[in-house]
């Protein structure tokens, strides 16, 4: 992967994320974690090589199919990317609305999830009125609300204390139990070491695998 005429930022990346698996993606700042995540959530298309998601080569997907594939992926962006003038409630409701879920279901599920991430009192607050950690939790709620097949979280615990970080990781674990494939990018080694999941380590654009087994069908697969 490269941007324009830059040097390659990611090279020889070849790995597969199995359905329902859980991976940590670690590596020093600037190693290319976010770039690899962007490839997986289809913000970027690989400049060379193949990227297969849910069994489809992404370069062969139509615009409409790309959009449908994106709706199967929940993303916690490193910079949150909440919609500024929408309330916490409306931000979290958005993936459901995009999938055409009816208002009644939305009105039931969104407050429940926001309550679970500790924001029951801030349903109608706009992001600017909330702290970094609170915004991050909205971003997480938005990523998991539609129970995506693939959940990608880029540094999702960067702005919260350890206790809350653990709680959020339990939420990801819960999603993993319910069948989502989860990839969490982080440089919080302490946190990673408390969970038994395999680790993908990026070092200057190259991938090394550490620990954990990988079994199961080859359905959601990234290769570059």
């Amino acid at each position, binding site marked *: 992967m490269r941007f324009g005429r830059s040097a390659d930022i990611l090279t020889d990346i070849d790995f597969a994320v199995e359905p329902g698996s859980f991976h940590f993606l670690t590596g020093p700042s600037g190693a290319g974690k976010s770039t690899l995540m962007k490839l997986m959530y289809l913000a970027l298309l690989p400049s060379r090589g193949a990227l297969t998601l849910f069994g489809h080569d992404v370069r062969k997907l139509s615009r409409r199919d790309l959009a449908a594939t994106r709706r199967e992926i929940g993303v916690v962006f490193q910079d949150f990317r909440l919609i500024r003038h929408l309330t916490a409630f409306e931000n979290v409701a*958005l993936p459901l609305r995009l999938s055409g879920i009816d208002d009644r279901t939305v009105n039931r599920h969104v407050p429940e999830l926001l309550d679970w991430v500790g924001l*029951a009192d801030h349903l109608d607050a706009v992001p600017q009125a909330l702290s970094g950690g609170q915004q991050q939790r909205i971003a997480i709620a938005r990523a998991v609300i539609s129970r995506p097949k693939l959940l990608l979280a880029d540094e999702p615990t960067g702005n919260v204390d350890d206790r809350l970080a653990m709680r959020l990781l339990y939420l990801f674990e*819960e999603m993993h139990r319910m069948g989502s494939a989860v990839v969490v990018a982080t440089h919080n080694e302490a946190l990673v070491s408390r969970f038994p999941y395999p680790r993908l380590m990026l070092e200057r654009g190259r991938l090394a695998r550490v620990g954990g087994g990988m079994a199961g069908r080859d359905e959601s697969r990234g290769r570059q």
Partner: protein
Amino acid sequence: MRKPRVAKTADVPRAPAKRAASPLRTKGDPGARTLMVIAATAAFFAISALMVLAAGTQLVSQWRWAFDGAVTIQIPATGDAAADTTRAAALATALEASDQVARARALGPQEIERLIEPWLGSLDGTGSIPLPRLIDVRLVSGATLDLAALERRVKSVVPEAVIDDHGRWVQGLGQLARTVEVLAVTVLALVGLAVVLAVGLAARTALALHRETVDILHLMGAEDGYVAGLLGRLVFRRTLVGGLIGLALALATLSLAGQIGSGVGAVLPPLTIGMEGWIAILTAPLTMAVISWLVARTSALAALRRRV
């Protein structure tokens, strides 16, 4: 503790379900007022042009109905009423012989007095003032008036007779009306073009302004049609409100013009717009909003397709 609990909803205070808020911000957006003012201005001009068009069409058809195929011949009074009557009758008979003329009738003195009464007041039918005699000539329908031939025939009977040709007058009016029509249609077309261009620009500007939001929606799997739809609705609402303001202004102007016009109403026939005209005028804001919605959607779709 690990599992997001169900049945927690009860203790979460929540205002009664609101309509889903639009992800595109609609308040405090500088483009909003501009588009509304453009829409109001465009609607004002378009509706004024429609009024002119509708009133003009009505007016011309009224004139045609009243004047088409009619000629009036005037015989100056000689002071001898009996002689005047004889001459008028003779001329009428002579004219009826022409195959261009369907009917020629000399108007009696009372009829003529009634015609001029509004200008000169009552004359008591005494014939105390010498009045010119009038002959009302109806042409055969479809006949084109050979004015020179008619004039020769008239002069051969009564040399002093004067032909008052409505045809020429109506033709002149018709030409004027057609010019006004062409102008009004041109104004409509130009206003339409301006609205299309302005809305296209507004849609692209809004996309640029909301770029961040659009990108987020895109990454969350929103289809182009969804984003274009949000934009279309935004533009529809603004142009509809603007259009209604334009309509109100145009109606106010019309009623003001009507009040000024009624001062000279004795001479000018009252302006009427007609059923079709009113339908076109009253639905103009909606028509404009629908066209704007289509344009906004189309240009948004075109702009979105250029992205990954």
